[in-house]
């Protein structure tokens, strides 16, 4: 019986969710977006997605071979490979995708230690570097609802994306409903707001994505857009145009909430959401590039450890909060020694020792004081309520006793003086 038994650390029941189910959720949520892209641009969209997966997975495998690691079957490269093409137009060349994937895997992920250790969002950096190298290819969009050629020269009719018109200060000539449904030129995955938002909400309901990050990004971002319109329209219209063009909504659900590079604490997530909202807004308002969101995301990634530190500092003070009160308002150092003595065994021992060697007892008392001080700073804050009160009561009683004793001694001395 015993050879087969296995060692296992303490909690022996675990949640059924694992990294694999989380990643599968994200992939499932990305599938409808690809279906919409297929509907608007034909099979080339699907092929771009497949090539993205292929490049990322192959590059990770090469990296693992070079580093002499075991090739693991984790799904994160596949997600990176699925997200990158969705940020680009459907006419983009395959080699651009390959370059973006190479940057994502070889520059962002592997040098820092692979999955779980990267500092920046791989998809965002891959897209950003492709956008810098080939702006003409990455920012020229085909008109939707036409079937693109799978390989070869691009002969599709091009159109101006709403984000570009907005950057020029012109009101886009599309209906808001069209923008919601995605039949406007733009990145192949980010235009169909309805589908993207539904998939994002699916992820939030499944708790794969923490609700705090997207909400704390989208609310301040919309507020800023509504307050500072770039075009001459009512602030609501302007908000709709600004919010529904570009990759902000897609990014909020699928890139910003990526667990590795965002802060860990809830409050840190809030701060990160607000920071990236402000940064994305500033990029949009003052910058000339249409897709400032990716850069805002990278800036947020830089600060995310800092947000965690700030959060930890706040919590640190909060945890001490109860204790500060205790030290300053309730506990005096004198009472701490009494706490030591309250244990019956200790008291007996001390009495005996005091009888035997009164000179040493004084020293021990100071030691006990130090010890008890240490103990009290280590106590958990919450569960002491009833202990405390009992100590207080006892100490008060003893104080009273002492007070009673003291005047009697005074009287004695007075009597002696009188005698």
């Amino acid at each position, binding site marked *: *019986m*015993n050879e*087969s*038994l*296995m*060692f*296992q*650390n*303490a*909690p*022996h*029941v*675990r*949640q059924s*969710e*694992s*990294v694999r*189910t*989380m990643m599968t959720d994200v992939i499932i949520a990305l599938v409808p977006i690809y279906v919409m892209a297929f509907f608007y641009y034909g099979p080339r969209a699907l092929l771009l997605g497949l090539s993205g997966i292929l490049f990322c997975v192959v590059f990770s495998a090469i990296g693992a071979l070079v580093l002499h690691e075991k090739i*693991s079957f*984790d799904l994160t490269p596949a997600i990176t490979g699925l997200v990158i093409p969705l940020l680009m137009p459907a006419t983009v060349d395959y080699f651009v995708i390959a370059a973006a994937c190479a940057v994502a895997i070889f520059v962002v992920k592997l040098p820092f230690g*692979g*999955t*779980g*250790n990267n500092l920046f969002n791989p998809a965002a950096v891959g897209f950003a570097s492709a956008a810098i190298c080939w702006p003409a290819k990455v920012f020229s969009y085909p008109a939707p609802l036409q079937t693109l050629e799978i390989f070869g020269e691009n002969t599709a009719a091009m159109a101006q994306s709403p984000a570009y018109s907005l950057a020029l200060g012109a009101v886009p000539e599309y209906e808001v409903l069209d923008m919601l449904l995605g039949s406007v030129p733009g990145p192949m995955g980010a235009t169909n707001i309805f589908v993207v938002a539904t998939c994002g909400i699916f992820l939030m309901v499944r708790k794969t994505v*923490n*609700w*705090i990050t997207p909400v704390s990004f989208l609310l301040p971002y919309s507020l800023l857009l509504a307050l500072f319109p770039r075009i001459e329209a009512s602030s609501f219209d302007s908000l709709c145009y600004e919010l529904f063009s570009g990759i902000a909504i897609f990014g909020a659900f699928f890139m910003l909430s990526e*667990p*590795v*590079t*965002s*802060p*860990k*604490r*809830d409050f840190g*997530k809030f701060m990160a959401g607000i920071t990236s909202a402000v940064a994305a807004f500033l990029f949009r308002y003052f910058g000339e590039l249409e897709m400032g969101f990716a850069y805002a995301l990278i800036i947020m990634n830089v600060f995310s450890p800092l947000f*965690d530190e700030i*959060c*930890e500092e706040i*919590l*640190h003070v*909060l*945890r001490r909060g109860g204790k500060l009160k205790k030290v300053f308002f309730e506990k005096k150092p004198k009472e701490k020694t009494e706490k030591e003595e309250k244990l*019956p065994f200790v008291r007996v021992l001390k009495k005996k020792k005091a009888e035997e060697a009164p000179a040493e007892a004084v020293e021990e008392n100071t030691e006990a004081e130090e010890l008890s001080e240490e103990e009290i700073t*280590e106590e*958990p*804050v*919450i*569960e002491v*309520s*009833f202990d405390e*009160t*009992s100590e207080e*009561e006892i100490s008060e009683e003893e104080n009273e006793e002492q007070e009673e004793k003291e005047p009697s001694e005074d009287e004695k001395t007075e009597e002696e003086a009188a005698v």
Partner: protein
Amino acid sequence: MSFFVRGIILEQKKEPMLTRSTLVMRHEYEYFDCDFPDIALDELSREQIIELARLAEIVDESDGKLLCEKLEKTDLGEGGTLIIDAVDDEPYISSQMSGCIHHPEKVALGIELCEKVLSPEKTYVAMYKHIFDTNFSIPKKIGNYKVEKIGGRYPAEGRVYRHIPKGKNAVVVGACAMLHLARAAEDSRKMTSCFITVAGDAILNPRNVEVPVGTSVERIIQLCGLNEKPEVIIMGGSMTGRSIFEPENEVVGPTTRGIIALSRGYHNPSPCIGCGRCDHACPKALSVSTMRKLAEFGDFEKLTRYDAALCIGCGACSYVCPSRIDVAATIIKAKKQMELAKKEGTL
């Protein structure tokens, strides 16, 4: 919403152990002689009850102390509260609860005797409320004593004190100790047995059992039967217990709450993806994911800054981790090393 809530929701899996009657392993009862055999139960004095607890050698299963010492030394003062602990917030474990539910009269008698010693103003039985997978409802009263349902997420033991009046004292005693006290008073029986939950998916007949103290784990498992070869056997609670290798040499004691045999353990942790779920789950609001990294690097100074000493070892962080990392074990180990270093004066 979940922003301020700490702790985790656990599937309790207490069925069918809770509703099935307790299985008693046959053993020879031991009896003691006392100097006051003929006194009626309601005429027993305070000292006599303490004497009974001492003669019967009752151990309180909630903290492992001797009941007689506990009764003797506790001074509740005015308006104190006596809490009977039957919380059982860990999955599978239901030994205290089933003691209360299947022997309510005995437990009530024990509580009555205990009340006589401690003379509290208020007495209640604490039970964990969030048991969804059973159609069994928690009784409102055990004998004449009110049952307070302790709600909320795991870990719930700390919330036992929530119902006591402010500024008053309270004492917690285990429900099974009350059962044993009643037996000692009625039949002069020594506490030779303990209540244990035997559960897990490898157990054929999951039950609450009453077995003599010192029975080996193997015998208890044989009593309930195995339906497949277990991969892990756990002694203690499902969240805090330890896995054992030699079931024939491990014996149960009064504080053992359960034995769980699982047909499959957890394998292959994957790297931490930094999702922050462990931070969210921690009932003490510690920055667990950062602490885990620090613990792996052995940076004890920073760990002190991150309040690693406050960890109560509840295991909630490991439970939620999607990468199946032993977060709690890493932190508890680092905490122990820190304490050692502090003693040696190197920190």
